[in-house]
């Protein structure tokens, strides 16, 4: 089993597009992938469940991955968080 605390670090938080991205990734893997905080955790393969996860910027979520191909699944989800869900691609404000 793999587990890690992950910071939601993109400016708009764990919104619909992010949930979609995580869900799509989760569905590629066989392992059980769960995300949550404070005793409430959800199955990442359920987009609806992910949508109920309230996590604005700054929230720490716990990722738990278990089962076949767990390491790959774990790395893939961690990478999404680390890249802030590739959100900056749509950023429009100058950051010179």
């Amino acid at each position, binding site marked *: 089993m793999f587990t890690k605390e992950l910071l939601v670090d993109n400016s708009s*938080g764990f*919104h*619909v*597009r992010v*949930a*979609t991205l995580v*869900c*799509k990734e989760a*569905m590629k893997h066989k392992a059980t992938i769960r995300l949550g905080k404070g005793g409430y955790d959800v*199955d990442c*393969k*359920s*987009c*609806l*469940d992910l*949508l*109920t996860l*309230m996590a*604005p910027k700054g929230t720490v979520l716990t990722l738990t991955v278990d089962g076949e191909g767990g390491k790959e699944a774990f790395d893939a989800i961690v990478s999404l968080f*680390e*890249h802030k869900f*590739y959100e*900056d*691609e*749509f*950023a*429009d*404000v*100058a*950051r*010179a």
Partner: protein
Amino acid sequence: MKYYHGIPVSPGVEIGLVSVVANNNFLIRPRAIESTQVASELAKLDSAFESAAETLERRRIDASEQLGEQYGQIFEAHALILRDAKLRAQIEKTISEDRLCSEYAVYQAFDYYAKLLQGLQDALYADRANDVVDVRDQLLRQLLAVNQEVALSSESGKILAANFLNPSDAAKLDPTKTIAIVTETGGLGSHTAIVASALGIPTVLGVGSFISELYEDDLAIVDGSTGLLIINPDQETVQRYQAKKETQERRRRLREALREKVVVKTTDGVEIEVKGNIEFPSEAVKCVENGAAGVGLYRTEFLFLTSPNNSVPDEETHFRAYKSVLETVGFEQSTIIRTFDLGADKTPDDNTFVNVKEPNPFMGLRSIRLSLRHTEMFRSQLRAILRASVYGKVKIMFPLVTTISEWRDARAIFMDVRDDLLDEGVPFDHDVPLGVMVETPATVVMLEQFAPEVDFFSIGTNDLLQYTQAVDRSNENVMSLYQQESPALLRFIRHTVSVSNHYGKPLSLCGQMASMPTCVPLLLGLGLRSLSVSPSMILQTKEICESFSIERCEEIARKAWRFETAADIRAFLRSQLRAVLGSDALE
């Protein structure tokens, strides 16, 4: 005449007759079924899911094509909700074990999530309930063969008034037919709001209960800028809003005309360059479409931050990206490529460059310091830029240069790379100008040292402000000190303008300040003639430049100079923009 206030989500004024769509609920009852009917109910469910998936996929493609990729993604979430295995299992269980009809099973399963989401405190999350309801309704329409789409595609030239509007229904609206939208529920963060705004239909959501008081073909005014809905307005009010509508349309046409205009002039005939800041090659297209006078800042860090496993991008990766941007922008306008501005907040999380966690990263190994330490990486970037220079007019800019030695070291490496390419016989532009960014107080006060040696300067107000006020802009405890209208920053900008002019070196400003409409007249007044802004701000910035005279801008700068605080300056600048562009200039 009756006034209602809602949430303004898409600007613009419209006056017209309303088309009323009372769509607040389907009538779903828990109808019991026989055990022999289970199989057929499940089959009905199957085909409903299939058709709904097809409908959503069509919407996704339509939205992507008409509005852009990110709008299409909204419907991708809907498709995933449809594929939610847990939800499907719950619905099938209600049918096969509880022996209830498929429409009720669907209604109940979705309702659980809709209520859960509505119950969350945050408005942004509560709005998600709309997406869930949208998907549910797609299924229910199939199951009940209800065709609400007919109701929504009402007669053309009318205002659509409904209890609520799903994002997918909004996406299907024809902006030439539906002139405005007003609903009882929904909010700013909802996808309906995003879609309506992308379609450019004036929209007010979340007005509260008003549908029951409305008759088909009542006259109404919708002001998508202020959130006002006026039902059965009197003659005088209609005239007032008619005038407002005309003013707005005039401004919109003016702005569209500016798209074609690369050379913009102030009312007293002074030419101003409005360029674009980009991060991704695709944004260069936006700059060209908006008639930018080139790319004033191409941030190359993304090549690093998006490369697989944060590996150092190779020369070919650099080359491909630069070639694509330069081919888009061409030779008539220039593209200023800024070398890696990595470090501080823009850094890979691993230990690629810094093997200890820096206690003070903004003062640490970042930007040009990092490039001068990791010269192999720096050299491959410079090689790639030079190689790409045959595809368009390119200039190179070094970030966060604080001493003359750093500038000379960077230039020396550039010259060395240049010699290599000459030896190898690789074609490139032999006159690529080199510039430095003015981003620290040290650079500003020592500018006369740099001026004889560099080809151009560019002020990066974000870092300059941060180092001037000694404030970490990402730290919310001190963020209030981070004001672009800082009187100290004003003085640094003015000094930079004076020195650049004295030495005849081109100067541009590419920080966030240039993208703030209120600051544009001030910057022109301080003597800047070239601004680089985010692509979405290009047209508006050009509009401002074309609306002010330099004389007036200088007067504004002189007055702003005398205010004691950033807050006073900001209030003054707002009043000035309003005075020239009208009271709705900041909407």
